[in-house]
């Protein structure tokens, strides 16, 4: 028997089934590692005094206007979160007598969701692992904002010709041999810049040296497949309280890319389905026209 309606339906069902269940292990994509020259940042919440010097310097370096945030009147730069004009913000967490500052910025994920979803590569991960943004390739679909587990990419809602805005680790300054603006500005070395490997070792050393001072975890070592911006929090203050969600160790693009590539591997399934559909339609039409002739 050649192709029948049944075989096409079976084929469609099989394609659908593989798309959702039996994704062979072999097809699962490999876990990504940070690139060899990976750089990063380490923010130690116990060292931060909330002076916001980093915010001022960040705006200056990135040429971003003040963001009044609406609550303090129009004359202050007082954003209460990352916005389309704020790539770096210091937040305050307070519950009872527990107080902590928190520096929100792009995490520069090892396997970033924004890079995975971006249609024509406005988001890219460079040699140092910095997740960069190219407005020339951005259509403003905002899928990156849907995808990012940290809600980092922001959009300029109030203008006719907007951009997506997020921290790019001052890659222009790095190219000139300077430090990222926030790191340079910090008077307490609460945020430091360096090779990712060194930062990880440094963070672990701090945890080991003063276990009573810290919450016992380096956020970003493995979270969401790892990030290149690492966090230390004060004892008794879990990272969720600071706005860093518990997202497990699985990189976000793993599920979606594995499923998608399993179905569309080499574009075989769509081509086979297309051919089968064409054949069935052709046969059916031929049968139908011969029946019609028979009627006459």
């Amino acid at each position, binding site marked *: 028997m050649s192709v029948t309606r049944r075989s096409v339906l079976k084929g469609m069902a099989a394609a659908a089934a593989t798309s959702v269940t039996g994704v062979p292990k072999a097809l699962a994509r490999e876990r990504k590692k940070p690139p060899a020259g990976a750089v990063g940042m380490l923010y130690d919440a116990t060292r931060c005094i909330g002076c916001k010097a980093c915010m001022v310097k960040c705006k200056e370096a990135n040429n971003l206007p003040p963001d009044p945030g609406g609550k303090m009147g129009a004359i202050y730069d007082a954003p209460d979160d990352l916005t389309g004009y704020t790539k770096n913000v210091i937040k305050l967490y307070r519950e009872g007598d527990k107080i902590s500052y928190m520096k929100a910025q792009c995490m520069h994920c090892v396997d970033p969701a924004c890079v995975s979803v971006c249609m024509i590569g406005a988001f890219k991960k460079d040699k140092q692992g910095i997740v960069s943004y190219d407005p020339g390739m951005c259509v403003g679909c905002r899928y990156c904002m849907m995808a990012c587990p940290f809600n980092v990419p922001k*959009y*300029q809602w109030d203008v006719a010709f*907007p951009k997506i805005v997020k921290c790019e680790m001052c890659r222009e300054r790095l190219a000139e041999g300077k430090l990222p603006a926030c790191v340079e500005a910090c008077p307490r070395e609460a945020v430091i810049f360096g090779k990712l490997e060194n930062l990880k070792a440094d963070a672990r050393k701090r945890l080991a040296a003063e276990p009573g001072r810290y919450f016992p975890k380096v956020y970003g070592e493995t979270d969401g497949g790892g990030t290149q911006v690492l966090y230390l929090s004060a004892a008794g203050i879990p990272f969720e309280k600071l706005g860093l969600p518990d997202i497990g160790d699985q990189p976000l693009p793993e599920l979606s890319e594995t499923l998608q590539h399993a179905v569309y591997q080499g574009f075989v399934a769509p081509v086979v389905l297309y051919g089968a559909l064409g054949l069935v339609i052709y046969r059916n039409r031929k049968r139908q026209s011969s029946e019609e002739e028979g009627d006459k």
Partner: protein
Amino acid sequence: MNSHFRPVGGPILTGTFLVSAAVFLVSVLILIWRFIAGLGPTTAMNDLYPWGIWITYDVVVGTALACGGYAVALLCYVLNKGKYHHLIRPAILTSALGYSLAGVSVIIDLGRYWNVWKVPLLWNWNRNSILLEVAICIMTYVVVLWIELAPAFIEKWEEDAPWQWLRKLSLKIHPWLNKILIPLLALGILLPTMHQSSLGSMMLIAMHKLHKLWHTPMLPLLFLLSCIVMGYAAVVFETALADKVFKLPRETKLLAPLSIAMVVVLFAFLVVRMGDLALRGRLGLIFRFDFYSFMFLLEIALFVIPAVLLMFRRFRYNPGVEFMCAMMMMTAGLLYRFDAFLVGFKPAPNSAYFPSIPEMFVTLGLVGFEVMAYLFIVKLFPILGGATHAAPRTGLGGVSVPASGG
């Protein structure tokens, strides 16, 4: 194609047409504002809810309701139910309109729309991006749909074209169209299979933001099944309305045997939906009786009721029940997709989104445009089957939206 399709005729400027035109004009004014002031002042979208109803309704729901062409093509050409052939043109028309307007809606929603021409360029593609696949498929499918519909225009222009060159062109194109028909029809089935499932895959990445009742690796399969249900239901809905408005002989009896196919698809959806929750130990979430479990139960009820009703022959052949079932199936799919894209989407504890009035008006305006285009085309071109040239009602009486979403 020797067709029994006829233009229904009658005056163009009816009450329905004018009301739709008024709504559309208001939305055009809002759109001018949107392109000058940006999305912030005109919509309720925000940094935590970057996608609002323009994506969720006009694209995610709208294209599914516009899957009538897909559902009927599957039945007619693959399952070889040739006797439903007369349903194909109205179904393709609503699909073409629905998908085209989804495309328009995307452009309205895009922040940096002037870069959109870079998307179809092969060398720019990020092959990991599910949205890219959806975008390319939808762009191609819009073209396929209008070519599939072209015979309706060509048949008319061969006899009576406003310009002589149009007539000549039509005569020239017609044989060529017949030649490419089969590859085109196959493409018309392949593309929705691909992008409707991928619309579901788009939410896979939102693992931690989408409620556990909706986030599942089954999203693509559930979206595929739901679009078939919604597309078919939209055809039943539209056929019943068109028959009533244009006083055509009732098609409902003809549609009834098809409903049994929908019972199969509805139960397939329910088995996958519930089986998945059970296998992954998430059934408990249904019985928390919070907002999410309420939305889930409502959604499931709207799938279960038509599935059960349509199992009975006497209900399938009852036009009233069938129409009601079609409405429920459309609502069920609509709710499922809204839940998966907006209601179940909680990116941060204090985040919220509810569409603004101008935002809703734009969506209404696009539906209004669709109604206008539908009425205009079916009156002038051979789309509907077995029509008598009865004078259509003027005014608003009983005339409602025969369209399929935005």
